[in-house]
């Protein structure tokens, strides 16, 4: 734990990528393979199952530190992080014991079977044997909210550097279902048969928002133009008559999509398709929120299946007849994809019905592209994708060969009415806001938004909030309605759960409208009209 806590401290103390990579490489050099594997797992978001409830942790920490519940809560609202709050409240440790990371993870796992009282003893005892940095890391391990300002890409770079491997290969090997308990670092990184794990997905190729002039793209004909669909980006894998569906967030979602079961025996062995999973009504894509209600369900009823029938809009083919074809140019992969789907159509219509080919558009002028982007929202899409026909299928977000060109977000002007302190780097600042629109002569809350302001603006708004607080409800403050913000969002849906009757997708603050008075904010009617317009495009 000491080495791991030191690594964490160094990673936390620098914002510079090179220093982070160096710290990781140094750590890999001095750690044994088991600890290195656990570190890789934790820093790539593979959390072990929680064996202790956070409410219990809180009670045990209160007991050791002699702090009452309200004071714990006050402290928590200031710190904005449970693991850190506990770390700071506990009395100084009595002795020092160095646990190995692997040993600690094993110990935490066994807690699951321990009775309450002995869980408490074990945790309290460990707390009193750790220094501050270790305690914090330990609490993070228990609460399972391990986020360290280190991207997956950095871990990959460090592993590649330390073990002298090619980065994109490491990316691929780290994909999928592995857990430290079920593999070794040696096997994970060096096993010659990478597809021994049939479920292993390929790293997704992601695009940046188009930020270069059209002229620099040269010939429009060299680019494959598609809609950017608004669903769940995923990979369908069929190997040896087994089906796996992965989301871009590397979540295995096969059970959520029984529609695709039919592909198990109809797609050829060794097929991997990259596409967007969408609710579809016949030939028409349906709005994203229709699928959202279904994804949340634990049990899929017949009704939810028929209300939100899904299919995959296929973008790309990554594996064909068991061969990794990512190194082929897009034009060739697309040809294979078309053949695959045509063949499927002639063999099994039911299977073909859940796989649609993402249409490719012929554009000859810039104006045609602009027009196409404009109408994309009417097709429930969020803009265009521009992919160079020569592009190989790369790993991760890359510039140059793939671009997304999203439509401008929808916007609405709202009034700040409630504020709450933020978490992480926004801790102890009022940065989580609730905004309202007018309804008759009242301001009704319609959305929360957390991001979008600069650090400087956050501090300015924070100090304004402290001076304009009307009432405090626990951690929430109501403020004098005075500040107007422009809120951007990607979609809007009716929602009976919200007072305003609407729910926004991806709301964020576009800018602080210092030029506007609260009378200039939008009305609830404007929002309802927007829903109307979007669901019935003229």
């Amino acid at each position, binding site marked *: 734990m000491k080495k791991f806590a030191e690594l964490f401290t160094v990673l*936390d*103390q*620098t*914002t510079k990528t090179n220093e982070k990579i160096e710290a990781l490489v140094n750590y890999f050099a001095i750690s044994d393979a088991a600890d290195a594997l656990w570190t890789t797992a934790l820093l790539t978001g593979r959390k072990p199952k929680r064996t202790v409830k956070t409410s219990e942790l809180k009670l045990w920490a209160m007991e050791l*530190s002699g*702090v*009452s519940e*309200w*004071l714990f809560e*006050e*402290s928590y609202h*200031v*710190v*904005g*992080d449970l693991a*850190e*709050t506990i770390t*700071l*409240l506990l009395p*100084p440790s009595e002795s020092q014991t160095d646990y190995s990371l692997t040993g600690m993870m094993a110990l935490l796992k066994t807690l699951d079977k321990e009775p309450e009282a002995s869980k408490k003893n074990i945790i309290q005892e460990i707390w009193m044997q750790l220094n501050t940095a270790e305690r*914090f890391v330990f609490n993070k391990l228990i609460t399972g909210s391990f986020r360290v*300002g280190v991207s997956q890409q950095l871990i990959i770079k460090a592993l590649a550097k330390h073990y002298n491997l090619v980065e994109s290969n490491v990316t691929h090997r780290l994909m999928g279902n592995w857990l430290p308990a079920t593999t070794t670092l040696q096997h994970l990184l060096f096993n010659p048969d990478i597809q021994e794990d049939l479920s292993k997905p390929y790293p997704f190729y992601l695009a940046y928002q188009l930020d270069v002039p059209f002229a620099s793209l040269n010939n429009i004909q060299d680019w494959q133009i598609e809609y950017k669909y608004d669903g769940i980006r995923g990979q369908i894998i069929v190997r040896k008559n087994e089906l796996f569906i992965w989301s871009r967030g590397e979540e295995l979602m096969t059970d959520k999509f029984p529609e695709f079961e039919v592909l198990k025996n109809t797609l050829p062995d060794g097929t991997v398709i990259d596409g967007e999973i969408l609710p579809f009504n016949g030939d028409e894509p349906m709005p994203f929120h229709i699928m959202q209600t279904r994804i949340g369900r634990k049990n899929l009823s017949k009704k939810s299946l028929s209300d939100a029938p899904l299919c995959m809009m296929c973008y790309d083919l990554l594996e064909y007849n068991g061969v990794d074809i990512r190194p082929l140019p897009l034009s060739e992969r697309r040809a294979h994809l078309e053949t695959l789907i045509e063949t499927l159509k002639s063999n099994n219509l039911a299977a073909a019905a859940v796989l649609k080919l993402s249409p490719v558009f012929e554009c000859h002028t810039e104006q045609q592209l602009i027009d196409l982007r404009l109408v994309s929202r009417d097709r429930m899409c969020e803009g265009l994708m521009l992919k160079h026909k020569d592009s190989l299928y790369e790993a991760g977000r890359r510039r140059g060969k793939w671009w997304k060109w999203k439509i401008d977000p929808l916007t609405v002007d709202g009034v700040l009415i409630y504020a709450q302190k933020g*978490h*992480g*780097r*926004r*801790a*102890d*600042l009022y940065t989580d806001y609730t905004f309202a629109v007018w309804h008759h002569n009242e301001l009704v809350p319609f959305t929360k938004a957390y991001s979008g302001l600069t*650090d400087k603006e956050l*501090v300015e708004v924070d*100090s304004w909030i402290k001076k304009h607080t009307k009432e405090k409800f626990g951690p929430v403050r109501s403020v004098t309605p005075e500040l107007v913000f422009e809120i951007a969002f990607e979609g809007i849906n009716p929602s009976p759960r919200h007072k305003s009757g609407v729910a926004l997708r991806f709301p964020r603050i576009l800018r602080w409208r210092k030029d506007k008075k609260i009378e200039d904010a939008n009305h609830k009617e404007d929002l309802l009209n927007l829903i109307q317009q979007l669901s019935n495009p003229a």
Partner: protein
Amino acid sequence: MLLKFDPYGIYCPQANVYIDPWKPVKNAIITHAHADHAKWGNENYLSHHLSIPILKFRLGDINVQGVEYGEEIIINGVKISLHPAGHIPGSAQVRLEYKGEIWCASGDYKLQLDGISTPFEPVRCHHFVTESTFGLPIYRFPDSQTVHQDMNDWWLKNKEEEKTSVIIGYALGKAQRIIKHLDPAIGTIYTHGAVDNLNRILEKTGLELPPTKRIISDTNKSLFKGNIVVAPPSAIGSPWMKRFLPYSVAICSGWMQLRGTRRRKSADRGFVLSDHADWAGLNQAIKETGAENVYVTHGYKSAFAKWLRENLHINAVEVDTLYEGESLNESTTPENEIDS
């Protein structure tokens, strides 16, 4: 009530004096020279004599009387004396006694020794006015010797990596405390002009500091490598910093106790070094006054007052003031430079 809180500040009607008024009044007792406690425009000032040169530097040619710690003056029957607050050089708690009732307004204070201020002395009283800047149990500050050691280790590491170390602390109090504990054997200590101005003033009052060099516009950039620069918070992110590239920057403040603040300030290092009492210090100070009535000002006042009522069974109330022990984000021209 010997003291009351009115729109001008903390007022003693019997003596007709204000303590740290935030609007101009006739008679003002100033606990210490930080800008949120020492405002411009009062007719008569009274402070500890060590504060006078700084007050004059910041407020101009004011009419000010200086006193020693413990020296008694009597105004209309009120016995008034100043006692060490341990916050910065010259900082004082104000003790007022009238007909057997004793009040103490403590301004800003800390119990930790900083090597530059007269150490805090508890004042027995019936009514105690306390700050609460770090009035939550999450603020348990590390031992300052460890922090000073960490600072020097950090400087040495930067030197090995051929970087300049830039260490940030308020120009009055914090900067001198930092300089006092830097190890001149590691390299040269350079200072920002705002820090140097106060060093010169404080040195005249008898403060001994290791040798430093003031940075002027034509100081040769190549001289900084491996050395350390002491600068006020206004330097962070300013073009003035470019001359030190490549550098590592550290902030010294009690707020560095929180990971969120450290990350938000995007400093390379945060050293938990404060001129205010931490949770344990506040509790100890209050217990030692023996006061039954405590008035909690700037900081986490409602939580801290509640804690005092529930756990120490003290009659504690929160009081609104305009002191700002809380902020780390203000701009720091000397006129509104606030400590933390």
